[in-house]
């Protein structure tokens, strides 16, 4: 029983990675594909947050708590924050690219958008 809560976030991360990759492989619409890429990225959020989680820990703000109170690891929060910024950048860039490409090719199907192929 005690094993389940500790394994659950890892299983969720693996699941998100798997479904995201499956979505990218099978997608027929680039906007949908970019959504799947975000799902793959969500797996990194879940994984990082679960690495830093401490059962019973408080948020790492010690204003009202004495130093030494068990707290979750703030390091991973910094990592996730950076990761969120990266994800926003990549998603925005991809959406801009696909918008430009749609203007030129009139389609957003990855199967029809192969570089250098007529």
């Amino acid at each position, binding site marked *: 029983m005690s094993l389940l809560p500790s394994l659950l976030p890892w299983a969720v991360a693996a699941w998100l990675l798997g479904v995201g*990759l499956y979505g990218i492989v099978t997608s027929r619409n680039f906007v949908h*594909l970019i959504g799947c890429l975000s799902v793959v990225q969500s797996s990194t959020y879940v994984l990082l947050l679960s690495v830093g989680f401490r059962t019973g820990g408080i948020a790492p703000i010690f204003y009202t708590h004495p130093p030494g109170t068990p707290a979750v690891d703030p390091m991973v929060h910094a990592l996730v924050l950076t990761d969120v910024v990266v994800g926003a950048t990549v998603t925005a860039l991809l959406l801009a*690219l696909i918008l430009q490409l749609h203007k030129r090719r009139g389609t957003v199907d990855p199967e029809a958008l192969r570089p250098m192929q007529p």
Partner: protein
Amino acid sequence: MDEAGGGFATVIGGLFAATLVFAWGYFDEVHAHFHVLMLVFMAGMIGFCLTHDVFNTFVWFEVMSVAAFALTGYELKADPLQGALNFTVVNSVGSYLLLDGIGLLYAVGGALDMGALGAAVARAPADPVVAAAFVLMAYGLLIKSAQVPFHFWLPDAHAVAPSPVSVMFSGAMVALGIFGLARISFTVFAASTAVMQVIRTLLLGLGVASALVGAAMALLQRHLKRLLAFSTVAHTGVLLIGLELLSPGGASGMLLYMAGHGLVKGALFMVAGILLSVCGGIDEIALRGQGARAWPAGVAMAAGGLLLAGLPAGLMDGGFGRIADAAAAGGQRWLWLPLVAGAAGTGAAVLRAAGRIFLGWGPVPCGEDRSLTDQEQEKNDRPLWLMLLPALALLAGSCVETAGAGRLATSAAAAFMPPGAAAGPAFPQPGAPVIVLAWLSVVLALLLAAWQLSRQRLPGPLNRSAQRVLGPPGAGLDFLHSGAVGDYIAWVVVGLALFTAAFGLG
């Protein structure tokens, strides 16, 4: 800062200086954001070289990648945009896997500094989480360094990016994947025998496959930038073989080869840019005999082709010799075969293209006429010497007196490797067989190029039987390079299964 990181950062800086001279007047309207993106790209790559912190590795990796994605699609035409999309999706998946691996490593070691993580791995070398962390981190870096079967994005992106950007892609960015992999393998995972075993078996296999597939695909191309892109795949395979030997000799050879390859490949992409600008095309068959106006570029291209093939001069040859020596010292003399095949095949492809474009040889194509091409063109109002000068500077840089560079690579590799790993033979001087190997590779490249350029003189039955033997494998390789991003990600999943199987069996 260590000598390996500092040394490669210097090479990157030199490449950028030459590239920005080459890009002078490249765009009709230079919006400032081209230069801003190039500088951000450079900052990302240099930061990646210098950092000793796994999370900063990820951050610099992303800075470099996002700038590279934007630069690929900079011209906002259909082909570059498609190439940029494939590049972005595949590399982003790689970087998220890298970050997953960093998270697992943090769970094991509770630190992000590579030295501290190395100590943590040494305390729990058989931990399966360590193995999983290595797989995920190696994955991101293997995708970046375009190893078979994760290389599909590379020809799509390098062939369509503006020429100055392609110079940096092939010259530095791809090699950085191998550099990062070497850094984490030597610094963080050196104590884990399971990981080292996987490096010796699975990564060796990937390196050999990259060298062979890259060389074969390069020979099958007619689009010059795509040809050079596949030759980069072959040479990163050679780099991975140098890494896999896990000896100081192999590592110093890898560092030398990385620097030499960056300079030579950069110069060759500049020659491709000159052809786009002066001759208004990049297709080898359409340009047959058209290059005479720019004959000095042809000399540079032939020199570059010979250096790729392993001409015993300069940094590339120094690295090649050390890797071959280290392979022999490690009892893996059979590795000479993929090393020679990779060098000779890519050299032959470049020499064939040079012979056809600048001398008008080779009226009968042999298979490369079926490959992809496009009608790219770049504006033609820049003086030839302005574009040629940086290319010649890079070629000269790759041929510097190698004794000093060799000493630097030796001490850099010693600092790069973990203490105690230097159990192998120290630094053998390139022996006689290795010099023979280099000349053998050059002669093979010349023969291969001569054969491809003189098919009209060979008897018909010989040509037809060669076509029957070589045609189907070539068509199969072409079929695999489908251009659809879903297929590429399917290969990533296949690779994930391969890694899991390697750890399960090993």
